[in-house]
């Protein structure tokens, strides 16, 4: 806990590349209406550090916290502003970092109580951080700032600022490498075929990509001795492709692609299913059999109705022949009608 009450008036130092990301801007409009953008001056220690890593870019992040008690005593317009803020839940910010950078983290705490009685600390995870942070107070807002540099993966993690009054308020900055987030469905392939697995990083450029296959929990590298079976290439720096040829059923399973950054790794999981041709072929033959059955039914039905009709036609003909025969047997008086009948039939 350190407080330097002498630093009252803020003198904005020249800071390159200021990126302000405000999480919950609960600002009490201070009497002098000053925007607390950069309330600190740089210490000699920090200037030294900045010189060492001056080739790295500077990233700034900001979290605002408020004292719970304030809510009850504030004016109604500000009550609506603070509604929805849960001071019991930790305020968190997720930051994606790809390359080594200089980092500047600022927490501001608004309270109605006595600023001097607030205990301010910074921690990385559970570990207390000792130096390199500043504290300033303006009106009823307490600012603290922590500056450091991230150059390797051990320095990634969660950094938190703590304000201890009656209750502990905490703001957390989570640093992570970019994640490969595409949720993929399993790829279906066939024995003897070839397949291309692709991993892509949106807007980020890993240093390197590696591929692993796993049966269970152990990951085995894949494609490192490039042979006829595995080919790894990628068109751009932000994607990689693994081509597996001559697939067999043993190739079925999970594959992992790892994107390697200076500050860590992230991975993605793809699953391959290898089927044999027999699987769809069975369905095909079943449907083909059904079609043959349908055609047979249709043609048989038709032949059946034709036969019935033919029988009834034959039946009619038979009746006509019978009638002629009976006319014949009626004798000579029926010569005239027979002629007429002959005429009508002859047409």
């Amino acid at each position, binding site marked *: 806990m350190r407080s330097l009450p002498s630093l009252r008036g803020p003198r904005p130092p020249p800071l390159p590349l200021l990126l302000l990301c405000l999480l919950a801007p609960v600002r009490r409009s201070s009497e002098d209406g000053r925007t607390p953008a950069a309330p600190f001056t740089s210490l000699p220690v920090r200037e030294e550090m900045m010189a060492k890593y001056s080739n790295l870019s500077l990233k700034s992040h900001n979290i605002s916290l408020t004292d719970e008690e304030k809510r009850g005593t504030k004016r109604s317009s500000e009550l609506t502003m603070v509604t929805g803020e849960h001071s019991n839940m930790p305020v968190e910010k997720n930051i994606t970092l790809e390359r080594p950078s200089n980092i500047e983290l600022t927490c501001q705490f608004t309270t109605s109580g006595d600023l001097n009685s607030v205990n301010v600390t910074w921690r990385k995870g559970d570990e207390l951080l000792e130096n390199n942070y500043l504290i300033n107070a303006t009106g009823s807002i307490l600012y603290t700032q922590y500056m450091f540099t991230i150059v390797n993966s051990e320095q990634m993690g969660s950094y938190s600022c703590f304000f201890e009054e009656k209750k502990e308020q905490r703001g957390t900055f989570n640093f992570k490498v970019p994640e490969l987030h595409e949720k993929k469905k399993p790829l*279906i392939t066939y024995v003897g075929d070839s397949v*291309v697995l692709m991993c892509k990083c949106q807007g980020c450029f890993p240093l390197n990509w590696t591929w692993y296959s796993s049966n269970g929990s152990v990951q085995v590298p894949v494609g490192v001795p490039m042979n006829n079976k595995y080919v790894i290439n990628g068109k751009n720096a932000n994607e990689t492709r693994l081509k597996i040829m001559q697939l067999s059923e043993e190739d079925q399973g999970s594959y992992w692609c790892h994107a390697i950054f200076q500050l860590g790794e992230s991975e993605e999981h793809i699953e391959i299913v290898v089927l044999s*041709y027999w*699987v769809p072929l069975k369905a*095909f033959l079943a449907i083909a059999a059904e*079609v043959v059955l349908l*055609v047979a039914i*249709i043609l048989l039905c038709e*032949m059946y109705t034709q036969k019935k*009709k033919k029988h009834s036609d034959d039946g009619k003909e038979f009746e006509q022949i019978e009638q002629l025969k009976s006319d014949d047997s009626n004798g000579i008086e029926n010569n005239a009608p027979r002629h007429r009948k002959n005429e009508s039939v002859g047409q």
Partner: protein
Amino acid sequence: MALRAEPPDGGWGWMVVLSAFFQSALVFGVLRSFGVFFVEFVAAFEEPAARVSWIASIGIAVQQFGSPVGSALSTKFGPRPVVMAGGILAALGMLLAAFATSLTHLYLSIGLLSGSGWALTFTPTLACLSRYFSRRRSLATGLALTGVGLSSFAFAPLFQWLLSQYAWRGALLLVSALSLHLVACGALLRPLSLAEDPVVGGPGAQLASLLRHGPFLRYTVALTLINTAYFIPYVHLVAHLRDLDWDPLPAAFLLSVAAISDPVGRVASGWLGDAVPGPVARLLMLWTTLTGVILALYPVAQAPTALVALTVAYGFTSGALTPVAFSVLPELVGTGKIYCGLGLVQMVESIGGLLGAPLSGYLRDVTGTYTASFVVAGAFLLAGSGVLITLPHFFCFSAPTSKPQDPVTEALDTKVPLPREGLGED
């Protein structure tokens, strides 16, 4: 074997409608839903989209250019054996495609082989349908053609599911099994002998007489103009919406909205075509003009509600013009020559269909938006409806007979082979 004087207008005809329904589903529904395979082919063969889209283009072109062959064969042998053979060819093409190792392989198997199969099925079936109906021809055709809309609605998700279970090879195998049902549909096409058949003669003579038939030629020109513009919204609507900053999912959804209003339009127009007296060509002109106006309005519409309304209207009117387009033909050339007539029309109008989408794409590349493409498409439709005015009896108010304009004099010199229809008629 007695010849009928009039088409039966029912009875077994309704089974033919059923057969035509499934056939239009299996031919055009498959073609329209083929876009689902498109993405898979691009990834599997690592070829650019333009080359992969040739597969469908070749299939459509072969189906339409091969229509006269299908018609000629149907005139000689009857529709049943031709359609069954076509079904086997179509299924065989898909089957061979499942084992493809290159894009050329797909051009030949799906494009050429399945395309020829489709050529042998669709046209003879519709022609057969026209022979079975006269008073209710438009309704029957409209009902049969709803198969296209409903199937492209159902097949797209079905194909997607097949792809997720079996990947594209297995899915093609199962689409081939699906296409085998064309054979069963062909079995339903009982042959019919009408009184005009001996008079109009064999395929060669019919083709010759058709080519000298003025109204038929004008009708073909009109349909070609219509066909040029017809497919443009289906091909370019989604891209146009993406240009207007729509997300891909709502854009695809809008297409399925058109797919719903399409069969509604078909049935409504079919019913209307039979109910309204006078030449059916007038209704065709009405629907064509409406579709043309709607297409021309597309560039003006910016608001989502306007675009949805336009798309619903487009689906309705473009669906409405299809059954009437098929019904005009028997009125012009008679049911005797319907097979050859339909085949010729399909072949010529396919030129329009082939040119339409690339022309629209070219206009878009040149001007930067789809405005010119849609306006030109509307213009083609209006031009087509203008040509329709020149058809005979256009301004009459009595129903025309379904007899051809100049039948007996055109007919045959030599011996007339009757269509070989052994199983009698109904």
